[in-house]
């Protein structure tokens, strides 16, 4: 096992797959010679050549569309969108084409494309380098949506995504690239090498898509989170000394509702935490499902914590970010409700 941060783990996943499968190609803005603005594809072009690791024109539409065409011609493209905030010009190709192709052609054509894109805030990126758009993909049938919270999962899930014959939107919480982040920007940064999930096998392995993970067992409440918020939730629960069960959703579509509901049925209380704006966010789907399945076991209203329903403002990054305080006060409300 090696120590890897999330960038290295993602790089390793692509490296493994480029090596195993000559059909795998990597493409995106600045991903080739330069190795990506976050260096996630560093060294891959040197190793596999500029015909398998492609710099592209600045057109997210063109990146998605050409990846679809390549996939239909037998390749297995891994496309990078430089920031999730810039995925919208490719939205039509994702929604109307990538997600629909298998269905509309009754399975004759399909496009095993993985779209990787850094998401989330906490890096002073302002409103156009901080978004978490998982909900606008979760609502689109025909596409899988994944968000890892640590290097081990990141590599295993990315390999699963590339091997999957369905298209996958692979959202990378960029605040976690270098280390776990518990929501407190004033604390010194912790590297992944100090974390168990920073131990990553060098070779091929998979983490299954559509399986949530119970990160920590607990009895008093269930906290459902994904991406950066898994770490924030854990810190908030610890700060309160709460015996909370913490679940990392990992796969947003298809959602592992069973694992979530089974836990809530045991604890009777549920808080959902994500970084995306709250209104109409994916937390709503989780809440709606949980109340449906666990109504008779619920002892308190399901809580939801998210980003405020505003753009992500540059100067108010930490007032905006759903940090430990916001999670903790939601937990307190959750535990005191009766």
């Amino acid at each position: 096992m090696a120590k890897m941060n999330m960038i290295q783990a993602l790089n390793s996943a692509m490296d493994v797959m480029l090596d195993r499968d000559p059909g795998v190609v990597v493409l995106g803005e600045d991903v080739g010679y330069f190795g990506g603005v976050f260096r996630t594809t560093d060294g891959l072009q040197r190793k596999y050549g500029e015909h398998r690791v492609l710099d592209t024109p600045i057109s997210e539409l063109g990146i998605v569309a050409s990846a679809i065409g390549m996939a239909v011609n037998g390749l297995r493209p891994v496309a990078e969108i430089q920031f999730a905030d810039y995925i919208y010009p490719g939205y039509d190709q994702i929604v109307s084409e990538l997600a629909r192709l298998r269905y509309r052609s009754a399975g004759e054509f399909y496009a095993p494309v993985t779209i990787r894109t850094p998401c989330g805030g906490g890096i002073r990126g302002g409103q156009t380098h901080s978004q978490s758009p998982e909900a606008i993909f979760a609502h689109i049938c025909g596409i899988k949506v994944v968000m890892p919270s640590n290097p081990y999962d990141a590599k295993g899930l990315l390999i699963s995504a590339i091997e999957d014959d369905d298209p996958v939107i692979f959202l990378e919480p960029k605040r976690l690239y270098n280390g776990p982040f518990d929501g407190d920007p004033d604390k010194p940064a912790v590297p992944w090498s100090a974390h168990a999930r920073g131990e990553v096998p060098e070779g091929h392995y998979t983490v299954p898509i559509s399986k949530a993970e119970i990160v920590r067992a607990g009895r008093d409440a269930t906290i459902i989170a994904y991406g950066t918020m898994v770490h924030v939730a854990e810190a908030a629960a610890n700060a309160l000394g709460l015996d909370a069960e913490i679940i990392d959703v990992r796969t947003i579509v298809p959602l592992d509702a069973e694992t979530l509901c089974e836990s809530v049925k045991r604890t009777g209380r549920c808080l959902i935490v994500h970084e995306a704006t709250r209104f109409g966010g994916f937390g709503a789907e989780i809440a709606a499902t949980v109340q449906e399945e666990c109504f008779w076991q619920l002892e308190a209203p399901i809580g939801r914590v998210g980003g405020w329903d505003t753009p992500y403002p540059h100067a108010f990054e930490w007032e905006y970010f759903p940090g430990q305080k916001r999670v903790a006060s939601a937990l307190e409300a959750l535990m005191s409700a009766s």
Partner: protein
Amino acid sequence: MPSRLRSRLHVPKPPARPGNKSDFSYLKLQPAGAQPKPDVRISAQATLPLATGLVRVLDDNHSAVGAWDPHLEPEVLQAGLRHMLLTRVFDERMQRTQRQGRISFYMRSYGEEAVSVAQAMALRPGDMLFPSYRNQGLYMVRGRPLVELMCQLLSNTRDMCKGRQLPVMYHWRQGNIFSISGNLTTQFPQAVGWAMAAAIKGEDHVASTWIGEGSSAEGDFHAGMVFAEVYQAPVLLNIVNNQWAISTFQGFAGGEKSTFAARGPGYGVPGIRVDGNDFLAVYAVTQWAADRARKGGGPTLIEHVTYRAAAHSTSDDPSRYRPKDEYLSWPLGDPVDRLKEHLIAQGAWTEERHAALTKELEDEVGASWKAATQYGTLNEGPRLDPDLMFEDVFKDMPAHLARQRDQLRAERG
């Protein structure tokens, strides 16, 4: 807003509206044989005369003239005539069945048959086609049984789309024809991606894609052009300029001050404007562009000048926005008639054989229709199993869809 000021906005106007006399004087035409045929290694810039002129082979006396004459054997031309005529007969019959309420929707390619038929014939079976909804001729050439197309139109138990798509939204993996999308222009950059993959794999196949001139305004057009140029992808990028996009004429897509083909050289992509109703010219241009692509010369943008003789679709009534008989004065004639007259002039065809062929194809279409309706129509059984609705959303059905499938089963009792 001061309303006393006069607007300076330019608003394109079609030459004729209902009640006016048709007027095609805006069309820049050239006589057959006027354009030289350059070597396929020509630079994009040097194609500008080809992109603003008009490649034509069939002249007014039904002879094939000039450098672009592909010198095809009579048998090839007869096959082309047959495919075009079959396309037309098929379209007419399907239009009628829609009027009778037996299919929900239809779109004809009347007047544009040469584009799909000549291009499919000039390409190889291994070349991949990314069509729009008005390229049914591709299926005729590649030989898909009519019954299979009809079953799609009927959304019946043998529907290739399993009931999921509107009529005419075919696909054919085995025949290398891509799935048609309801969203315009999306196939254009996808074809480029397919061609990039062919190049990456070192294969010899080319891709070919078709969009309407109206559709060329979408951003997908631009992405396709840029990616095709940057990677020199082996792809034929076709704009079928049939003068109309539903109710708006080609000036609203940017055709007033330039040709569509002329965009090519601007992007560094060779452009050719071809008489889309001239089977021989379309064939020759396609052959040239495919040859260029196979030799590593990269993409070619081809504008087919033609006319949408029919309504946009069965939901449309063109007499509301253009003179009813405009097609009769279309200066480039009818593609079927022109090839027929050429063959007759060559002594390789007769009116009698034409009538007989027409009858034969009508019978074939009629018999196919009969066979197809055995498998059900939209309103009469047998019907597809509604369970199919939940398949192919993903490769494997996830739990929530299985639950919904069961719920529907219960609902249906």
